[in-house]
């Protein structure tokens, strides 16, 4: 019973929200707040007809490519900035400025540069999330355990070995944090780009139904996408994370 306690809590919480939603929806027009059942019906139809998968695929591909490229670039930048104070100072201004530019601006600029193509979504993702992940990785570099690095040097390891075996493993928690909020941000900017000019994807569909003022469909697409992100978080990210944190005893709080 105890093992399933957290699952039970999550399920109970979601059911409560749906229940409250249902109650509130009784007081409003369906165009304003449709009942959960009509929305779920639409969700089922979306999955059944395969419409959802096509647009989900387009959005996901953009997110995946942009996100992966951003992670590589950010990790490289973060590590190099962590190693050299000069490099850190050099990129400090650009990173700070990059942090403040909102997703909308990147979406607009990318579309004007790259046109109504996937490349604009991908570029917007990279531009938006690279500064944040770089800062995060840089924090990780500053928190490095200097004692084990010294141990590595005492045993005559070269720089490559120290980075591969001593530095990168310590950055793993920062990677996972970056993955989580990086994906969240990537989704936001992709949707904006899709709304503004692309011709497919989740953002495009939500914009489409917004144009027709169909709350039911807007909610259905939103929920479908959220379900997929849930599966990614719990199915993929968490299981990877468990593999990478096997070495740590779990402390009961």
């Amino acid at each position, binding site marked *: 019973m105890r093992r399933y306690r957290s699952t039970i809590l999550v399920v109970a919480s979601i059911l409560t929200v749906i229940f409250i939603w249902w109650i509130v929806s009784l007081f409003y027009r369906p165009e304003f707040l449709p009942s959960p059942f009509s929305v779920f019906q639409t969700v089922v139809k979306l999955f059944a007809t395969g419409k959802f998968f096509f647009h989900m695929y387009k959005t996901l591909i953009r997110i995946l490519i942009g996100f992966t490229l951003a992670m590589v670039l950010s990790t490289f930048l973060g590590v190099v900035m962590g190693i050299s104070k000069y490099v850190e100072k050099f990129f400090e201004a650009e990173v700070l400025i990059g942090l403040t530019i909102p997703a909308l601006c990147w979406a607009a600029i990318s579309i004007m540069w790259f046109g109504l193509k996937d490349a604009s979504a991908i570029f917007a993702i990279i531009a938006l999330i690279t500064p944040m992940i770089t800062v995060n990785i840089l924090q990780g570099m500053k928190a490095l355990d200097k*004692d*084990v690095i*010294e*141990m*590595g*040097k*005492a*045993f*005559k*390891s*070269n720089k490559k*070995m120290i980075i591969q*075996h*001593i530095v990168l*493993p*310590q950055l*793993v928690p920062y990677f996972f944090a970056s993955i989580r909020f990086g994906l969240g941000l990537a989704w936001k900017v992709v949707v904006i780009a899709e709304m503004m000019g692309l011709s497919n994807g989740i953002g495009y569909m939500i914009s489409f139904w917004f144009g027709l003022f169909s709350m039911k469909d807007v909610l259905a697409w939103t929920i479908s996408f959220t379900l997929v992100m849930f599966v990614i978080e719990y199915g993929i990210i968490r299981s990877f994370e468990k593999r990478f944190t*096997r*070495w*740590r*005893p779990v402390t009961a709080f």
Partner: protein
Amino acid sequence: MPEIIVRNLEKSFDSIDGKTINVLNGVSFEAQDREFVCLLGPSGCGKSTILSIIAGLIDYSGQVIIDKESNNSKAKIGYIFQSPRLLNWKTVKHNIKFVLEANRVMPENRDKIIDRYLDLVGLGEVEDNYPLFLSGGMRARVGIARALAIEPEILLMDEPFSHLDELTARRLREEILKIWHEEKRTVIFVTHNALEAVFLADKIFLLSDKPCKVFKEISVNIARPRVFESPQMIKLEKEIISSMGL
């Protein structure tokens, strides 16, 4: 096995408030081939700095001559730290593999070597465990096995037992001596514990507080195997303590 000659080591550090702290002020001593040498001094006097210098980790002025060569980067040096400094994300086995790879030991030989030295320190059963699941004493022993696994000519030990309980420390002192007898290497062992120094060393160099200097050399002529807290040991320890002005 090489002899180590340390001559006139000087080292200063800049502190946070801009002042220069003179840590080593002309430290000189020698360790003969296969000798077990102790550097004995109060905490904070700069003993660890001396070891870091010999290991080539920081720069310094003065001379460090290993096997008749100045700035000898070829000498194989095994370092055992005060806290084990293991890579917690690697298993015990891979912790040792890491230093073997750094020292370019052939991959075919690695497993054999790891088994040998883990067995030597009594940890043959835990090679697939992660460090955080082991006790403090076991982690210390992994640190020892790791340093020995590269089969170094020189062993540098920085108060390796000072963080352990006395029972574990005594056991490990015996083990270290046993290993040293079997594979006679030159050992430089840093400690603030006079009794430990008398138990372990052929020769003890007494260090003063910062700015650090060697102010006395003591040969320990008690026959081995030594009995911890034997009357001869206690007598010598008392002499040492009074030399240090206490």
